[in-house]
């Protein structure tokens, strides 16, 4: 698989539990796992579509899971789905995801939902359902599209 230029790396207090959870909830596949002499996770990668995420421990004092910092997030990962987003949401819910926003159609043409994982990371998931013109998007949102609308 060719490597994408950008890869997110997420920190968990219990990264091994996270590997199992992310497979069950989102359908991610474990493609690399490295364990040290004590059986602790040293490095891991999961694949989804054409991308990877790295799942790790709180590997320095300044790398924290939301579970260690009162649920705060400083970034989140967005999953682009080609498929049935409502079914994806149900799968995540069944695995224990807290659904913060149920699947809903967005003005820009995607259907999206938002959830929180076992340690409090926010994830957004979106799937395109229709093509929307710049004019329609601007009228619906009141925003000005400055650049980059396909």
């Amino acid at each position, binding site marked *: *698989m060719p490597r994408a230029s950008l890869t997110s790396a997420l920190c968990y207090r219990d990264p091994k539990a996270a590997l199992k959870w992310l497979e069950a909830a989102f359908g991610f*596949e*474990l*493609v*690399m*796992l*490295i*364990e*040290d*002499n*004590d*059986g602790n996770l*040293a*490095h891991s990668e999961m694949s989804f579509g054409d991308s990877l995420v790295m799942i790790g421990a709180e590997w320095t004092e300044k790398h924290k899971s939301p579970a260690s910092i009162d649920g705060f997030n400083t970034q989140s990962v967005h999953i682009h789905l080609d498929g049935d987003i409502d079914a994806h949401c149900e799968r995540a819910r069944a695995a224990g995801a807290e659904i913060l926003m149920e699947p809903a159609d967005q003005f820009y043409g995607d259907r999206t939902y938002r959830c929180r994982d076992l340690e409090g990371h926010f994830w957004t998931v979106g799937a395109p359902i229709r093509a929307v013109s710049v004019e329609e998007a601007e009228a619906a949102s009141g925003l000005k599209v400055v650049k980059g609308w396909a």
Partner: protein
Amino acid sequence: MSSKVLVALRIKAPPLRVFEVFTADIGAWWRPNPLFSFTPRSPGVLAFERTGEGTRLVERLSSGKVFEIGPVRIWDPGRRLVFGWRQASFAPGMDTEVDVRFEPVDDETRVTVEHRGWDTVPIEHVARHRFPDAVFLQRHAEWWRALLTSLASQAAMDVQERAKEGDA
């Protein structure tokens, strides 16, 4: 056994076929890595000597000598393959093991290699090249990823050739 690397890859062929290519064609898809050579005279050509449990994975060197990499402990075609893995420099008691699983996923095979037991090889041993443990394991995992990618190419080539034979 702890201290391990795990690498998985999806391959576009059925599990039994991927198992056959892994075992019968290992001499064709194996890519030697000078960092992890089995003997000072490597690389030679890898082969499983026979099929079934009790056989062994060997490296046939150009001198004619045969080096045993390890005995096959589980031979379950299309499902699982487990074999020992030693380098010539390993002292008694140093032993690692490779556990390969073949699982059908959609119309592909998910091949997972788990190479474990590196805790039996001390950090200062020559086979580890003075790398810190994490660096050594990372390099080893990257090699396994390259090996599985080569296995996937071999399996795809094999599927194409069989399709051509079917046309003839």
